[in-house]
C-alpha cells in the first residue's frame, strides 16, 4: 500500500471522548474535529471512517480493570477499537486543573505499546481559558509516554471559544495535520522501522502484537532460559 486511496484501505479514526454530560461539549468538539479530519483525509483522495469510544458508560468497567485486572467485554471492544485505529482523537473535559481521571484511567489500562507512532489530536474543553495549558502541559506528556504522535496543534475550547472563528481555524489546522500524517504514512513507517526496539508484553492487544508471536529467541534472556549464561555457552549440556 503506497498511495492511499488506490489501495481501497479505509483509514480508521477512533474518537475517545471522556465527556460525561448529555449533550457533552467535549463530545461535540471531538465530533467537529473528527468530521474535519475525515474531510481532510477524503480531500486527499483516501477513504476514512469514524468510530466513537465513549468512556463515560465504561467508567465502572475501567475502574474494575484498574483494581482487579478484569476487563469487561465492552471495555475490551473499546480497547480493540483504539488498537485498530490509524489515528485517534482524544477529547477530555478539564477537571480541577487536569485532564479527566476517567481518561487517565483508560490510558492506564492500555498496553504500553498500543499507540506507538499513532497520530493523535489532543483536545479539551474547560470552563475557563485559564486551563488552556492542560493539553500541552499534561495530556501531551501522557501521549509522549505512550510513544504516540500528537499533531503539532492541540484544540482547546473554553466557553468564549465556541463562538469564535479561531476555534474552527484551529480545528481545521489540527485536522489537516492529522490527515497529512495519515497520508504520508509516517506513523506506519515509524512503527515498521522501530517496532522491534520497543518493549512488548507477550500476546498483548496491540494489532502488531499478534504478529509478534514470531518472538526473538536470540536474546540474552532467551539464551539464559536455555542453559546459556555469561560464562556458559548456550545449551551447555546436562541431561
Amino acid at each position, binding site marked *: 500500500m503506497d498511495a492511499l486511496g488506490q489501495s481501497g484501505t479505509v483509514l480508521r479514526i477512533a474518537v475517545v471522548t471522556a465527556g460525561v454530560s448529555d449533550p457533552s461539549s467535549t463530545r461535540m468538539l471531538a465530533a467537529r474535529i473528527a468530521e474535519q479530519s475525515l474531510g481532510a483525509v477524503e480531500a486527499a483522495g483516501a477513504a476514512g471512517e469514524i468510530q466513537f469510544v465513549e468512556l463515560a458508560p465504561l467508567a*465502572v468497567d475501567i*475502574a*474494575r480493570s484498574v*483494581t*482487579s*485486572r*478484569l*476487563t*469487561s467485554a465492552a471495555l475490551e471492544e473499546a480497547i480493540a477499537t483504539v488498537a485498530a485505529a490509524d489515528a485517534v482523537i482524544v477529547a477530555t473535559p478539564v477537571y480541577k486543573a487536569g485532564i479527566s481521571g476517567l481518561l487517565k484511567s483508560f490510558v492506564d489500562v492500555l498496553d504500553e505499546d498500543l499507540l506507538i507512532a499513532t497520530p493523535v489530536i489532543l483536545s479539551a474543553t474547560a470552563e475557563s481559558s485559564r486551563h488552556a495549558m492542560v493539553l500541552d502541559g499534561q495530556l501531551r506528556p501522557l501521549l509522549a509516554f505512550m510513544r504516540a504522535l500528537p499533531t503539532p496543534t492541540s484544540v482547546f475550547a473554553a466557553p468564549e471559544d465556541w463562538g469564535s472563528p479561531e476555534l474552527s481555524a484551529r480545528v481545521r489546522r489540527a485536522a489537516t495535520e492529522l490527515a497529512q500524517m495519515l497520508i504520508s504514512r509516517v506513523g506506519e513507517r515509524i512503527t515498521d522501522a522501530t517496532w522491534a526496539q520497543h518493549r512488548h*508484553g*507477550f*500476546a498483548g492487544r496491540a494489532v502488531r502484537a499478534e504478529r509478534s*508471536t514470531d*518472538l526473538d*529467541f536470540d536474546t540474552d*534472556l*532467551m539464551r*539464559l*532460559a*536455555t*542453559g546459556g*549464561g*555469561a*560464562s*556458559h555457552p548456550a545449551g551447555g549440556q*546436562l*541431561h
Partner: protein
Amino acid sequence: MQFGIFSVSDVTRDPVRDYTPTEAERIDALVQIAQRADEVGLDVFAVGEHHNPPFVSSSPPILLSHIAAVTKQILLSTSVTLITTNDPVKVAEEYALLQHLAKGRTDLMVGRGNTVPVYPWFGKDIRKGLHLALENYNLLHQLWRQDVVDWEGEFRTALQGFTSTPRPLDDVPPFVWHGAIRSPEIAEQAAYYGNGYFANNVLAPNFHFVPLVNLYRERFEHYGHGTKEQAIVGLGGQAFLARRSQDALDTYRPYFENAQIYGMNSSLEEYKELTPMSVGSPQEAIDKTMTFREAFGDYQRQLWNVDLGGLPVEMALEQVELLGTEVVPVLRKEMAARRSPAAAEAPTHASLMREKYGDAAPRRPRPSANRGDNVTGTSPYRDGDPAYRPNYPQVG
C-alpha cells in the same frame, strides 16, 4: 491426570466470625487440609512460599516434610518455590532431602514471587528477577543431574567441585514445574528442559494464559521432547462449592467481598463469570473445569485454591471433601473420555524411574570415604566416573 489443591498459606480474618486465627492455628489447619486431601483421594497438595505476614509458609520443604509423615499417598508440591531469592544450592539440597523423606511423593514448582520487598530482604534486585529465575534454575537443574558441579554465573558465588547432597532419590530428580506469569522466557525455559508449565489461572480473565501455554507447547515440541500435545501443562483455579448453587454463593459472598485480592469492585456473580473461579454446585465446578480442557488442550494437573481469604478450617475441609468425592471422580471420567491417546500422563517418581531405568535397577549413590574436602580427587561416590577431574579455580 492429577487433581489437587494449592494454598498460599494466608492468615486472614474470618469476616463472618470476626476471628483472626493465630499463626499456630493456621499452620495446623494447613496440615489438616493436606491430610483430608490425602484421605479423600486427591492427588496433589501444594503450598506457597512467603516471607512476610500474613503468610505462614516461609519454608515449604519443612512444612511438606511434616505433611509427608502424616499422609499416605498424596503428592506434595509447591506453589511456588521462590527460585529468585533462594540460593539454588539450598533448594537443591532441601528438596532432595524432602524427596527422600517423602519416598518420592514430591515435586516442586519454581516461580519468581511478586512481593517487591522480598528481593532486598534477601539481598537481591527485583529488576533482575527474570535473570535470577532463569540462571538459578539452570544451576538447580545441573546440581540434581551431576554429582560434581563446576559453576560460574552472575548471581551467586562460583562453585568448584561442589556436590549437592543428598543426591536425588534413586538418582531421579524431583519433577519441576515452572510457574507462568507473563514472561515468554519462562515458557521457553520450561520447554527447553522438558519440564512442566503451570498457569495459576486465578485472578485473571478466563483463558488469559492460553497464548503462553501455547507458546510453551510449541517450544516443547521444538526442543524434541514430544509433540505439542505431549507437553506437561498444569492449571490452577479456585472453588467454593455447596450442593445447592445458591448456598455456595450465599456462604462464600462475605469472604469474597472481604478479599482485597479480587479488587473489591466486582460482584461475585460477575467474577465467577469472567474468571476461572468456580462458585456453585459440584456440577458447575465440573462444567467450568471442562472448559479449561477445551481452551488449553489436554493437561496433566489441575489444582484449586480452597482456603484463601479467612475461610474457617472446617469450611476448607468440607471443600476438600466435596472436591474429592463429588467433583474429581466425575472429572477423572470426563477428562479421560475426551483425552487424546497421545497426551502425556502427569509425571511421578514412579513414571520418571521407568523412563530412566526401564526394568533396570536404579542408581542409589553411596559416598566414598570422607576426604575432608569436596574439591580434589574423583567423584565423591563409589560408582563415580574415575576419569572426572575438577576444574580448579585459578588463584593469583
